């Protein structure tokens, strides 16, 4: 009985009692949702374009952020450091295409997945060799990112909104919108989907895989940089940050690996669901359910739509 009340009554009572916390929870859920969407976007881009599940996205987040901070630490002005970091991401994309993807064209997905694992290892070693393993501070102020918070009263409590979070949500949304338009409305976007379907056929119609891959990995690199800045500003830039890439997995699965809108909607559902679940129902089992709760949400959705919410339909035909 007690358990039932804990599950079915108390959470809702709490929502009504403390609306400020509800609003705060929703806001936090929204912000993390947007940030999850951002990570997922990096995956989606690459998956769409090459069918590669990019294990290295997490380390790319760290690597790009470290590059940015590293250049700044070398005395380069912040904005120039940002430009240089973007340049480094381009070089990375180009190298990956040359060294990893090109020789592995037309191989099964899982092989390419494995190759990105090799890439992860390499980047960890390389990143630590160049930048050292210590955590670094994100140059938040120097990049003109707002700090501080606004508070407003609500139902006897208050809701606190971080300016950084607002900025993160805005920047992430812009990023997602721009990339979404670019990849759905342009010739490249169509080619991208073609490549994801079949490398071989794409080659045969003269789609330049090389060029597409560089573009897409570069875009994913820029997304990683933005992700790195945002998450780095919330804690710090360290190699631990690569773990957050795991956060993208349920989002991807829920939204569908190939869909940019899917990444957004999936991110929001997971972000909100996870925060609400942890906050209101987590205490039932002693908290800390966030780690698997997202997967359970995703799994339930999948049982109804095996290709995720917006994923491409699985074609079954003989």
């Amino acid at each position: 009985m007690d358990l039932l009340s804990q599950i079915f009554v108390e959470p809702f009572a709490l929502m009504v009692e403390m609306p400020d916390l509800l609003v705060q929870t929703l806001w936090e859920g929204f912000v993390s949702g947007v940030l999850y969407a951002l990570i997922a976007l990096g995956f989606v881009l690459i998956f769409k374009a090459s069918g590669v599940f990019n294990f290295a996205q997490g380390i790319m987040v760290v690597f790009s952020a470290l590059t940015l901070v590293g250049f700044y630490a070398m005395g380069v002005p912040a904005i120039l450091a940002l430009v240089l970091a973007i340049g480094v991401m381009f070089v990375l994309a180009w190298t990956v295409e040359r060294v990893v993807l090109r020789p592995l064209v037309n191989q099964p997905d899982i092989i390419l997945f494995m190759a990105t694992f090799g890439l992860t290892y390499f980047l960890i070693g390389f990143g630590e060799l160049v930048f050292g393993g210590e955590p670094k501070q994100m140059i938040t102020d120097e990049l003109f990112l707002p700090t501080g918070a606004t508070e407003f009263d609500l139902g006897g409590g208050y809701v606190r909104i971080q300016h950084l979070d607002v900025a993160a949500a805005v920047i992430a949304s812009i990023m997602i919108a721009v990339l979404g338009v670019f990849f759905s409305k342009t010739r490249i976007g169509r080619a991208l989907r073609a490549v994801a379907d079949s490398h071989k056929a794409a080659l045969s119609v003269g789609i330049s895989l090389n060029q597409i891959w560089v573009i897409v990995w570069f875009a994913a690199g820029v997304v990683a940089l933005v992700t790195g800045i945002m998450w780095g500003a919330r804690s710090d830039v360290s190699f631990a940050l690569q773990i957050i890439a795991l956060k993208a997995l349920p989002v991807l699965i829920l939204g569908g690996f190939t869909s940019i809108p899917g990444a957004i909607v999936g991110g929001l559902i997971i972000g909100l669901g996870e925060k609400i679940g942890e906050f209101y129902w987590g205490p039932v089992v002693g908290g800390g359910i966030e780690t698997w709760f997202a997967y359970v949400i995703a799994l339930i959705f999948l049982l109804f739509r095996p290709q995720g919410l917006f994923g491409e339909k699985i074609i079954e035909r003989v």
Partner: protein
Amino acid sequence: MTALATPASTETPAPEAAAPILSVNNIEVIYDHVILVLKGVSLTVPKRGIVAILGANGAGKTTTLKAVSNLLRAERGEVTKGSIEFDGNRIEKLSPNELVRRGCIQVLEGRHCFGHLTIEENLLTGAFTRRDGNAAIKEDMEKVYAYFPRLRERKNSMAGYTSGGEQQMCAIGRALMSRPKMILLDEPSMGLAPQIVEEIFEIVKDLNAKEGVSFLLAEQNTNMALRYATYGYILETGRVVMDGDAKMLRENEDVKEFYLGVSGADRKSFREVKSYKRRKRWLA
């Protein structure tokens, strides 16, 4: 190579210039570093020519076409010997993309449409390398729809769901969208209704005559192929065993027996075929 395989270009009545658009010289292809598949194949396609490669299953027709279009690398095969020239330039090192840009496109055997793209989007990907603006592309698309009305009906369906024949049309239409100078057609008639087969060959003839597109086609439907082609090569286990004018081939006894079937009154019914194998004379 046997004596029958003579250099083709000299004998071929080239419609225009003598310079061939494609010439393959003595190439050897190895898969997986160990499986030798082509053992010295040479062939020539004259400008504005239609050349057919004939041969049994596994003879290496597809491999030859892929060697030209440079798609072998994606299957862990490589051209280890010989040279390939397209339009006067060596092309073994070019990427498939560059080759399409230069006007040589392949229609893969077994359709290979982009399953998750609609038919129309599939056609548009064919125009990927083109830079001449949307209007021209649109115009060509209309042309493809005119060739294959069935595609227009299904243009908003995902290609993965369409029937085998529809996919075949889509693959051919897609290649046409790149405005090629030369098309490598691999088994275009496979899985198509007889009417459509005829239509496809009419299209080939049409494009060849009106737009000067050259064709290299690998085809099992020998009858059809030799009717439309100007020249033919016969491949057996990775070697050219015979080549010659289409007309000449059509009349060759062995070709008749093994590829064409005897037409007319002497034709045997499929019911009566007995299980016997006569050695092909060119293998002797």
